C-alpha cells in the first residue's frame, strides 16, 4: 500500500507536467474551429468530426458532397450527335453558389487534402470562370501548406489564365499532370489547352494518361472521343 502511495504521487506529477509539455511543444496541426464555417446545417456533423478526431474522414465526405453538387448540372446542354454531352466547351459551367463555401469548408477540416484543393481551385478558375475565388481558395490552402508547390503552380497558372496567356497556363499545368494526386479535371484542362494550341501529340498523350488514371466515366468517354478526333487529324501521335 505504501509503495503504491509513494509511486503514485511522483508519477501523477509527471503526468501533470506531460499535459502542458505536449500542449506547448506540439502545436495543433489543424486550423482552429473558428475557421470552419457552417455550410448548410453542418454544425452537428462538424462537432462530431472534431470530437471523435475524424477530420480527415469528414473532409472525405465533404469531397464526395462537392463532387455530387458540382456533378448535378445547373444548365442543361443538348447532347452531341452521339447522344453524349460535350465535355469541353463550357463543361462544368454554371453558378454553383455553394461551391466555394463547400471547398473552404473541406479545406478547413483537412488542409492537407491537396488533390481536393487543386480540384476545387481548378474547377473555379477554368470551368466556372471565377479565378478570383480560386486564387483566394489557394491562398487560404497555402496557409497550412506553404511548401505545397502544386498549389503555387496552379496559382501561377490561374494568374496567366487571367492574363489570357494560354501557352503559359498549359506549361504550368504540364508540371502538375504527372503527379499521382493531380485531379483529372486539371489533366483535362491541360489536354484541352494543348489541343487548342495545336500541340496534338502532347494532348493525345495527356488523354491517354486520363484513360489510365481516372475512373470517372465522363472523362474516360471524353478522352476516347478526343483521341479518336486527334487520330483523324494527325496519324503520327505516339
Amino acid at each position, binding site marked *: *500500500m505504501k509503495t*503504491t*502511495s509513494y*509511486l*503514485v504521487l511522483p*508519477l*501523477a506529477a*509527471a*503526468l*501533470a507536467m*506531460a*499535459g*502542458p*509539455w*505536449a*500542449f506547448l*511543444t*506540439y*502545436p*495543433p*496541426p*489543424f*486550423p*482552429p*474551429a*473558428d475557421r470552419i464555417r457552417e455550410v448548410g446545417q453542418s454544425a452537428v456533423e462538424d462537432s462530431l468530426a*472534431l*470530437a*471523435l*478526431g*475524424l*477530420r*480527415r*474522414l469528414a473532409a*472525405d*465526405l465533404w*469531397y*464526395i458532397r462537392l*463532387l*455530387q453538387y458540382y456533378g448535378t448540372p445547373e444548365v442543361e446542354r443538348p447532347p452531341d450527335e452521339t447522344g453524349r454531352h460535350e465535355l469541353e466547351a463550357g463543361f462544368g459551367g454554371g453558378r454553383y453558389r455553394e461551391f466555394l463555401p463547400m471547398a473552404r469548408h473541406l479545406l478547413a477540416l*483537412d488542409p*492537407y*487534402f*491537396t*488533390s*481536393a484543393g487543386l480540384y476545387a481551385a481548378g474547377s473555379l478558375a477554368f470551368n466556372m470562370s471565377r479565378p478570383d475565388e480560386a486564387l483566394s481558395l489557394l491562398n487560404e490552402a497555402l496557409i*497550412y*501548406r506553404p*511548401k505545397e508547390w502544386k498549389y503555387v503552380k496552379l496559382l501561377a497558372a490561374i494568374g496567366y489564365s487571367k492574363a489570357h496567356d494560354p501557352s503559359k497556363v498549359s506549361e504550368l499545368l504540364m508540371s502538375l499532370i504527372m503527379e499521382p494526386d493531380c*485531379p*483529372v479535371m486539371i489533366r483535362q484542362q491541360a489536354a484541352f489547352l494543348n489541343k487548342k494550341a495545336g500541340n496534338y501529340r502532347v494532348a493525345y498523350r495527356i488523354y491517354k494518361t486520363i484513360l489510365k*488514371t*481516372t*475512373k*470517372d466515366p465522363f472523362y474516360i468517354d471524353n478522352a476516347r472521343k478526343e483521341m479518336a478526333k486527334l487520330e483523324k487529324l494527325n496519324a503520327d501521335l505516339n
Partner: protein
Amino acid sequence: MNTSKPVNMNYLSTTWSIARYSLLENYKNRFFGLFIIFAGVLIYASLLAGVMAVDEEARVLADLGLALMELISLAYALLAAADAITREIRTKTIYLVFSRPVPRPAYLAGKAAGLYAASALMLGVMALIHLSLLYSRGFAAPPFYAKAVFFIWCKLLIITSAGLFISLFATSTVSAVAIMGILWTLGHFTSEAQFLISRSSGASGLALKAVAYAIPDLQLFNARDLAASAAAPPAAGFLAVYLLLWLTVPYLFSLLLFRKKEF
C-alpha cells in the same frame, strides 16, 4: 533467506494467468464476435462511399475503414473496461479469486493486460478485413497504415486504463461508459482547447488550462488524421513516456481504490 525472486515470479505468473483468462473471457464473449462481424459488414459497406469518391476511392476506403475500426473497437473497449471488474464484484466471482493467494496488484494488472490484448486482437482481425477490401479493389495500404492502427491501439490502451479506474468509483456501467466517452471526446479537442485557452484569461483561462492538461491528449496519437500533416510529429520517446504514464497512473489510482474494497 531471500524470498523476493519467488514472490516476483509468483506475481508475474499470476498476472499472466489472469491476463490469459481475461483475454479468453473476452474472446468467448458473444459481443466480441458480434462487434467484429458488424465491423466487417460496415467496412465492406464502405465500398459504396469509395465508389462515390471516384478518383479518391483509395483514400476514402482507407479513411472510412480506419475510422470504423477505431469506433467499433472503442465501443467494445468502453463496455469491456467498464464491466471487467464490476461484473466480477456483482457476480461475486471475485471472492473465489481472492480466496486463493492472488495479490491485488497482480489481479488488476492481469485484468488490464487481458483487455489490452483483446483490443489488439479485435483491431488485428478488423485490419485484416480492411486490408482484404483494399487489396480486392486493387489498392495498397497507405504508407501510414501500420502506424495508424498501432496508434489506435495506443489510444484504446489509454482509455481502457482510465476506464478501469473510473469503473471502480462509477455508480453503474452506463455512467462509467459515459465518463469514458466524454474523456475520449475531450481528448480529441486539443486544437480547440488551445484555441479557447488563447482566447480566455483570468480564472476561466486557468480552469480551462487545468482541465485541458489533465485530460489525455489523444490527438497526439491520431495518426489517422495526421497522415499527411506538415507539422512535425511528436517525438517517439515522448509518446512512449506519455503512454506509459497514462497506463501507470490510472493503474496505481485503481490499486489505491481497489485496496480499500473488502472482498
